[in-house]
């Protein structure tokens, strides 16, 4: 038996699990969760680690971790917030968002074209950890890049600026931004439509370790860990990338993590198949991507989720006019983020809001296809990522862990219901439909093990993938009774 300890420091709960990765059948042995200790994140980690290792309080941890190495990820204190800057919304501005999300960031803001005083003021009030500054192909646009470098230079931003734009502008940008903390990497879009987001992703990881981990009381946790601490979404991202190694049935997987503040979608599938009669327009996305929707969440973001999902919800409610009561629920959920639905009506509202979040997050993650008739026959024009090949959807996060398989209003899973509505949606203007999974199997990450397994995915890829596959299929480890709601809604 080879035991490893994995901890996920959330904004409300510090969750942990003890895994066995050495046996023939790797397994999750025990789970625990304690409230996150906001003043010193180390305290909560130590408490949960002692609990899982059966150590008395105050016992030194380091010796016990010799035969159960510790891995940790964190989304505490707002996680990793990134502002994504690019030029054209469908090109470098989109690439910047994709790179930031795929590095585990929360998109604190995103801007295209020229940063004006208003945009700079918005960035200053947001104070992101990192500004991912893209724009221009190599040897391409200079004017917007120059203007935006000047705007950032004159700002009161404390963030590290990560320049991943036009390579020909590197020297000039470095000169303009010499007063700022600046990191320069290869262009995330060296040619129109061609992506190279890996250097930016790696750099974001480095910046996270150097400036963010240290700044948030994670230094002592890091000293105990066997590997670097990562932002929680990056842990999940890595696990999604590893899942395929657990068997062929895991080769095309989509993972949804819906929380109180955001709805995140991860997918690992070929973005464009190049079938006969299909044409891809715009950027070609990598097989493994993450999108994060800051306006779609069940608690902190309940108001914006309701606003975005208004049409979806009214369609689902039909002639049933519960909108007033729904509004009250939304207000309560937004103000009191730990609230859980108590009555059947509140459960229905929570479900409807969740469905709306899922519906829009899925549509934004997926690419679209529209038909065009040409002299040589019908052609399908694809934009974005094709998810039709996805065979499995894993529902994770507090709400989906509770209700992923069955909604309050019937037997259908909220995921499948939202998916069906999203698949039926056709853009009125262009006739474009979303390229969504066609008949996926929905599995629930009931124990919220994904981030915990993501922590160990790099060191034990096979073990992590095996445990993920096994836990989702059936097995159920009960949480201690005092923390049955040990899922973050933030």
């Amino acid at each position, binding site marked *: 038996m080879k035991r490893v300890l994995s901890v996920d420091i959330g904004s409300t709960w510090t969750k942990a699990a003890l895994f066995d990765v050495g046996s023939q059948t790797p397994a999750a042995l025990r789970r625990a969760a304690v409230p996150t200790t906001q003043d010193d994140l180390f305290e909560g980690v130590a408490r949960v680690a002692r609990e899982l290792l059966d150590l008395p309080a105050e016992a030194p941890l380091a010796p016990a971790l010799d035969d159960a190495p510790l891995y940790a990820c964190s989304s505490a204190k707002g996680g990793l917030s990134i502002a994504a800057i690019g030029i054209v919304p*469908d090109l470098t501005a989109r690439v910047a968002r994709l790179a930031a999300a795929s590095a585990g960031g929360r998109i604190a803001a995103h801007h295209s074209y020229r940063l004006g005083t208003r945009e700079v003021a918005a960035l200053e009030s947001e104070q992101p950890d990192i500004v991912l500054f893209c724009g221009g192909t190599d040897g391409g646009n200079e004017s917007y890049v120059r203007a935006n470098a000047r705007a950032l230079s004159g700002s009161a931003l404390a963030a590290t600026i990560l320049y991943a734009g036009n390579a020909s502008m590197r020297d000039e940008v470095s000169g303009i931004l010499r007063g700022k903390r600046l990191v320069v990497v290869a262009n995330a879009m060296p040619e129109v439509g061609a992506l190279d987001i890996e250097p930016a992703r790696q750099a974001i990881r480095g910046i996270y370790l150097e400036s963010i981990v240290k700044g948030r009381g994670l230094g002592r946790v890091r000293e105990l860990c066997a590997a670097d601490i990562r932002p929680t979404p990056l842990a999940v991202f890595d696990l999604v990338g590893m899942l395929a190694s657990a068997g062929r049935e895991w080769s095309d997987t989509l993972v949804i993590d819906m929380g109180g503040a955001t709805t995140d979608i991860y997918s690992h599938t070929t973005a464009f198949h190049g079938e006969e009669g299909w044409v891809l327009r715009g950027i070609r996305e990598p097989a493994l991507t993450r999108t994060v929707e800051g306006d779609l969440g069940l608690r902190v973001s309940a108001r914006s989720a309701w606003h975005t999902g208004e049409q979806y919800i009214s369609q689902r409610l039909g002639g049933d006019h519960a909108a007033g009561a729904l509004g009250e629920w939304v207000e309560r959920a937004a103000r009191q983020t730990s609230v859980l639905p108590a009555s059947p009506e509140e459960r229905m509202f929570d479900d409807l809001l969740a469905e709306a979040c899922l519906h829009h997050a899925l549509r934004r993650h997926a690419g679209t296809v529209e038909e065009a008739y*040409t002299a040589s026959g019908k052609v399908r024009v694809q934009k974005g990522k094709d998810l039709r090949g996805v065979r499995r959807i894993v529902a994770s996060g507090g709400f989906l862990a509770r209700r992923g398989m069955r909604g309050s209003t019937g037997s259908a899973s909220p995921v499948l219901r939202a998916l069906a509505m999203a698949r039926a949606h056709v853009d009125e203007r262009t006739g474009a439909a979303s390229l969504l999974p066609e008949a996926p199997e929905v599995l629930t990450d009931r124990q919220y093990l994904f981030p915990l397994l993501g922590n160990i995915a790099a060191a034990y890829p096979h073990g992590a993938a095996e445990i993920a596959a096994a836990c989702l299929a059936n097995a159920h480890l009960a949480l201690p009774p005092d923390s049955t709601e040990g899922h973050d809604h933030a």
Partner: protein
Amino acid sequence: MNRTIVLGVAGADCHSVGNRILDAFFTEKGFRVVNLGVMVSQDEFIDAAIEANAAAILVSSLYGHGELDCAGFRDRCVERGLERIVLYVGGNLVVGKAPREEVAAKFTAMGFDRVFMPADDLEEAARLLAADIDGQP
């Protein structure tokens, strides 16, 4: 001098052979070609031109509906900040046989700097393109 050009076939048109020939030809003539391939919308031409800082956009249209696909092209460039970009269009621009002058007049009125027919000389086009780009302020 800036020698970056954006190339593509406009509208619901899948003819890609000519597009590849133009790509190879202009590349050989020393241009940096951003080739968007077939079925390119006006906004995609303009998006690419902005990111790549292109000096010219060369629109091909071969299926006779060029007039529809190219309407408002210059206006859209102006709206999106590309006031001075060189705009060329070429191919089978209209259905049936129409006098060259008539077709040219139509597309020049839309704001295209030059209009080419299928039999036109590519060498001459490359020479004109270089001169037109260099003539831009």
